[in-house]
């Protein structure tokens, strides 16, 4: 029975740029646009970076400097688990008196999962618990840095050209050009959204108010082209005949996690600093309001703003499915849950004949024609044993049970196909009170919030036909 509670059984349709069918638990609801939003129709922004093992926060600038890696934590190069520091006692001669030996602590890195230690690659034990471990230097760093600087300069010039053209053409619409091209577009080569002051003769645009990088030297950076070599080192003679030492060969995954070196032998696998994870916030693309904003603290899982769909839209869940037979009418029991605190009226409609959204259904469905009323969610109701009956007149053919903010009701399903899974679709229409809208007349006693009617397209997958 637990399989019926799986969220993938009930899908809601999101009408964004693409039509996406997703369970309600994965959707967001923009209450300013009054529409459902999925992960694909919102813009994702990075909030903060943090290390998954030491939970240390890092400002974005520092993260970029350290190439998005934590300073203290290491990953095992063999199995990518987090490495832990272990200590041993080794006898070491006292600095004052070379003849006596005393126990000194030596630290090494070890993996708890695959038992890799830093001694396996020849890294000496360090005398400090943290901070002593260095990543090996990449011999090509200098050349790469120079190339990056050169290309960054080229990218800046391109952007200047582009902006100059845009601003020249669209003078009266300057703020628009700004918002489209500098908030959502990240520049090439990771420059971020830095803006540069133009030449002093040119008009200073509306971009002035934001962070300007102090005038960079316009010096030309030149690079030497790469040299092509004629001769290549020959392979060793026994390259084809030497037997392969399998434990020594690195797997592709181990090799590619270190793109600087890509060592072929396991004895050259050095540990790397751990990658940082990030917290992201989501923003509706149409009205630019935030839909989801997590807390800044990495140890906290709460949200400052959490406009998820399950707290605004009534949720349909499948409760029980009888044996479904081809062309025979059977009753499926569904539940509707009301997430908000006021009474909600829900009506269901079958899809029209030529409904463009209705592409997946393989059965006809008959939904209750009367309007269903859902009581508001009352947080204290579960503790109230003497709950008074709610006084709703329910048609016993349609509504089977009613429990605080949930009702169970029947729909009739007639599978149309002889084989395959049975899928039905219908429209769910409910009233939504927008509490975000400002109260117009403060003299009135009740806050009159307008009720608007929202319609959603819901698809249920009821599983295979009974044999």
């Amino acid at each position: 029975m637990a399989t019926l509670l799986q969220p993938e059984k009930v899908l809601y349709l999101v009408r964004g740029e693409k039509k996406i069918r997703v369970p309600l638990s994965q959707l967001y609801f923009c209450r300013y646009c009054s529409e459902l939003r999925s992960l694909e129709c919102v813009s994702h922004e990075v909030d903060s970076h943090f290390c998954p093992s030491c939970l240390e926060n890092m400002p974005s600038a520092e993260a970029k400097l350290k190439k998005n890696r934590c300073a203290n934590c290491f990953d095992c190069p063999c199995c990518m688990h987090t490495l832990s520091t272990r200590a041993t006692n080794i006898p070491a001669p006292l600095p004052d008196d070379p003849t006596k030996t005393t126990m000194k602590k030596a630290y090494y890195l070890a993996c708890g999962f695959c038992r890799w230690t830093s001694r396996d690659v020849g890294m000496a034990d360090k005398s400090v618990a943290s901070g002593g471990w260095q990543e090996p230097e990449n011999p090509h760093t200098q050349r790469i840095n120079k190339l990056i600087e050169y290309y960054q300069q080229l990218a800046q010039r391109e952007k200047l050209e582009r902006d100059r053209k845009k601003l020249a053409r669209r003078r009266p619409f300057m703020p628009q050009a700004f918002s489209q091209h500098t908030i959502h577009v990240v520049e090439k080569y990771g420059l971020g959204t830095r803006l540069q002051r133009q030449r002093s003769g040119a008009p200073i645009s509306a971009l002035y108010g934001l962070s300007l990088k102090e005038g960079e030297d316009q010096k030309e950076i030149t690079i030497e082209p790469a040299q092509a070599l004629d001769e290549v080192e020959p392979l060793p003679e026994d390259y084809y005949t030497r037997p392969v030492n399998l434990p020594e060969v690195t797997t592709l995954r181990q090799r590619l996690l270190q793109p600087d070196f890509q060592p072929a032998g396991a004895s050259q696998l050095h540990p790397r600093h751990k990658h940082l994870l990030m917290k992201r916030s989501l923003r509706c693309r149409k009205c630019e309001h935030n839909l989801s904003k997590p807390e800044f603290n990495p140890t906290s899982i709460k949200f400052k703003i959490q406009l998820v769909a399950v707290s605004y839209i009534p949720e349909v869940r499948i409760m029980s499915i009888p044996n479904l037979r081809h062309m025979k009418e059977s009753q499926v029991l569904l539940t509707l849950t009301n997430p908000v605190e006021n009474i909600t009226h829900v009506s269901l409609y079958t899809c029209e004949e030529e409904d463009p959204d209705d592409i997946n259904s393989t059965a006809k469905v008959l939904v209750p024609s009367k309007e269903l009323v859902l009581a508001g969610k009352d947080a204290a109701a579960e503790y109230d044993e003497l709950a008074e009956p709610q006084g709703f007149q329910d048609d016993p053919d349609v509504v089977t049970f009613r429990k605080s903010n949930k009702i169970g009701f029947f729909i009739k399903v007639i599978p149309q196909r002889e084989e395959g899974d049975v899928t039905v679709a219908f429209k769910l229409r409910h009233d939504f009170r927008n509490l975000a809208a400002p109260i117009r007349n403060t003299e009135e006693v009740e806050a009159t919030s307008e009720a608007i009617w929202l319609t959603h397209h819901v698809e249920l997958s009821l599983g295979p036909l009974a044999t």
Partner: protein
Amino acid sequence: PQETGAVVCVESDIRGDVTIGARTVVHPKARIIAEAGPIVIGEGNLIEEQALIINSFPENILPDAEDIEPKTMSIGFNNVFEVGCVSQALKIGDNNVIESKAEVGRSVILSSGCIVGACCAVNTCEVIPENTVIYGSECLRRVQTERPQPQTLQLDFLMKILPNYHHLKKTVKASSTPARS
């Protein structure tokens, strides 16, 4: 038992002809079953709870057939059998670690310094080379440069503490015939 002699708790289940060396600790609820032959366990081993060391008949041979010779299962010294592991290997060397819920089949021979990782099942017919580590859900292997350390500290601690809380089995000199299930 102080420095010599094994510490074998009464709650452990030992059946058949089993010889246990000195300084070995057998936790309660460990099971050592010598069905198809005797088991000889060396010194300094650590056999934790719910570990199963069994010298059983191979699956396709009936226990009542007469022409089977009892094969001795021998286990070296300083091995660790962690909680819930199953070992049927006939020959285990020294300084090996069989981690929790690992399974070692009958045709495997562990040499020295091998580590069979948690939940790994090794059923091949081979000799595992020295200092091999088997880990991961796909039983990947790698070679480490040094063998795992013997658990001397843990053994000393257990030999002091376990007699305070459990009754111990006394050693039986006479060897009994192998039990048949």
